[in-house]
């Protein structure tokens, strides 16, 4: 049996194209770029070798450290929220709505397809104050509160950005996890039910363990995309007020493309990649420990 699934030619045919494209057009450019962390300058002014100077600069640059924290905090809160919401939705689709879930699935997924610029505009309007106040502040006024200018503070901006992220991505994670839940054979669920497991216990002891691979993959994917959050914070409040909601990607982008400091930008990118790696390894480790237990 093993020989059939160990056939070299088959592996080469199936994996070859991906690997060639991937190494040539992703790994090589990434290495090229990351190598520039040790240089200063850009492709027009030329590069000068500076050794580890950029790394020293990173750890003494207050904006870089601040951006690092923005990325980490955003990733933790965004991932937590969107995976929980997505999983609850997926459970709703599979076990409550069942075959009738198609319309809801489409509707909840749909915010994902809207351009970020339009979504940011929508949320800016929802929380606006002043001449043309948005509904959120109307509700606050209704309960006797004073209007809040969310986008004038970093906590407010972060909160709006998170709600915006949940709104637009929960449907995506729901569909992703839903596809995984569908793969659980009905017999397994049925026999568990006959054994007396139901409700929360069924979910905790049967459904969650069985959907673990896709759940872990989703968490990894979510961390890796939210750690690299870029356009939503940019479109919502331009990383402000000040630079207090500027994530690492935005800082890197500005450094490379607006300030033409390509070497330092590569250093920031390298730090971000290391961060993603650490998070991914941490998830792998905790999930394998869980599997052993």
């Amino acid at each position: 049996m093993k020989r059939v699934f160990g056939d070299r030619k088959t592996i080469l045919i199936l994996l070859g194209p991906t690997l060639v494209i991937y190494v040539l057009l992703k790994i090589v450019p990434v290495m090229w770029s990351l190598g520039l962390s040790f240089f200063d300058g850009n492709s027009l002014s030329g590069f000068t070798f500076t050794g580890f100077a950029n790394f020293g600069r990173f750890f003494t640059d207050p904006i870089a450290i601040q951006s690092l924290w923005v990325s980490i905090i955003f990733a933790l809160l965004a991932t937590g929220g969107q995976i929980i919401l997505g999983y609850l939705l997926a459970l709703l689709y599979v076990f409550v709505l069942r075959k009738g879930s198609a319309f809801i699935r489409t509707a909840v997924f749909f915010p994902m397809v809207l351009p970020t610029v339009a979504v940011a505009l929508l949320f800016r309007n929802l929380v606006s104050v002043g001449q043309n106040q948005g509904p959120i502040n109307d509700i606050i006024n209704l309960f006797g509160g004073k209007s809040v200018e969310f986008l004038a503070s970093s906590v407010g901006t972060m909160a709006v950005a998170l709600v915006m992220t949940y709104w637009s991505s929960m449907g995506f994670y729901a569909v992703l996890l839903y596809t995984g839940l569908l793969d659980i054979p009905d017999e397994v669920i049925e026999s568990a039910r006959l054994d007396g497991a139901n409700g929360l216990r069924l979910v905790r002891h049967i459904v969650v363990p069985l959907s673990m691979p896709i759940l872990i993959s989703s968490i990894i994917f979510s961390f890796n995309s939210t750690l690299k959050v870029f356009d939503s914070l940019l479109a919502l409040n331009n990383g402000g007020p000040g630079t207090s909601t500027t994530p690492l990607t935005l800082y890197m982008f500005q450094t490379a493309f607006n300030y033409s400091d390509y070497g330092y930008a590569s250093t920031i990118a390298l730090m971000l990649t290391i961060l993603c790696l650490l998070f991914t390894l941490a998830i792998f480790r905790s999930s394998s420990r869980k599997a052993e237990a």
Partner: protein
Amino acid sequence: MITRRSRRTLVAVSLAAVTAVTLAACSSGSGASSGNAASGKDPKAFTVLTANENPTLTAELKELASGACSAENKALPLKSQTVAQADVVQKVTLLASQNALPVHFIAGTAMVTPSGDLGKNGLVLNYEKELKKLGVWDDILPGAASTVTSVYGQMVSLPYQYNIEGIWFNKKIFDKLGLSEPTTFDELMADAGKIKDAGYTPFATDGKDAWPVTRLIGDYIFRSMGPDAMKDVQDGKAKLTDAKYVKAAAAVQQMAQDGYFGQGFVSTDAATATNAFLTGKAAMMYDGSWLLSNINDKSQDIIGSDNVGLMPFPAVAGGKGSIDQWPANAGAAMAMNPKDYGPKVGQWLKCIANNYGALALKKDGVVSGFKINKTVTNVDGPTKMVQKKVSDIKQTVLWFEALMDAKSTSLAQSNVSLLTTGQMTPKTYMSQLQAGIDANK
């Protein structure tokens, strides 16, 4: 109204086209004999890279290509390329490093200065030299030329726009409250207080884009310390942490704390601020003369264009600056690649210099830094007013961030929301900015 105007425009354009073709025919003949004017080699096409967000310039160049410059276009066809404004620095750096710069291109402010990436590498054409050789240097307004030279350190951009900035005000509200144009900053603040008490927003402010707020800091500095105040900072003769500079930041912070910018101005965007002014909810708005396109648009301008006035930023008591030194700019840098500058490109340049001013004014009401070589009738009232102010100007000043590097500019603009909301002191704001400028030296 619109159809009548466009028909008239059409007639005027076709007339202009006929004369221009004959003119162009002559000029291209003479151009060929003085071929030494060109230093580079002609490319295959006249490629022009403009900002995606500025379709007007592309459209006007296209109109020139099919009209006044059709002979030049036949010799060297115009090819438009576009780039997103936010992407300009990256794109131009990439193209330049691949030796693939378009003939005529938009660039970042800091790139085209003598010490910038393009300036250092000899990738920007000196227009003054070439336009003089072509005999059309007169077509550039002296004020525009001096603005371009003082921003970029050399004449490396064509003034497709020539904007002045000041305080637009609603005459009706001023009359109603018995106010007259304030000439000093203290008067302006006193008036703003009265306006606020009357229930209007004193200044409609686009705090999201931040520059309308930093401009006020800059103007205050120019009024109190004279037109060279920011150059002195750049040259190290003064520091932003000096008391007088900090005072400017404090003055603007005070305006915000007094509520003169209106509720929620930090998250107010350009369209919303403009709308508040043009619908009569706000009495004043600091903006450039490009606001004319909104003012002349009847569907946006509810208060009526007769009720719109423009006044300069007022004087600061005991200051060295003067109220008639208007802040001015000449739009984004539009440079030319010397390597592609051949005789045919030279003819294009000449034709643009000859015709752009009148065309832009007639077609889109744009006030440019080119001389208007044909009489243009039917100019909207407010545009005429701005044009008159532009022609009366003796001295201009730059804007707050004009001489700063890209990173300090972005720092100035991102921190200003912290300053105005009181999350940062004027002193910290200025010292962070000074540190940014120092780091770039």
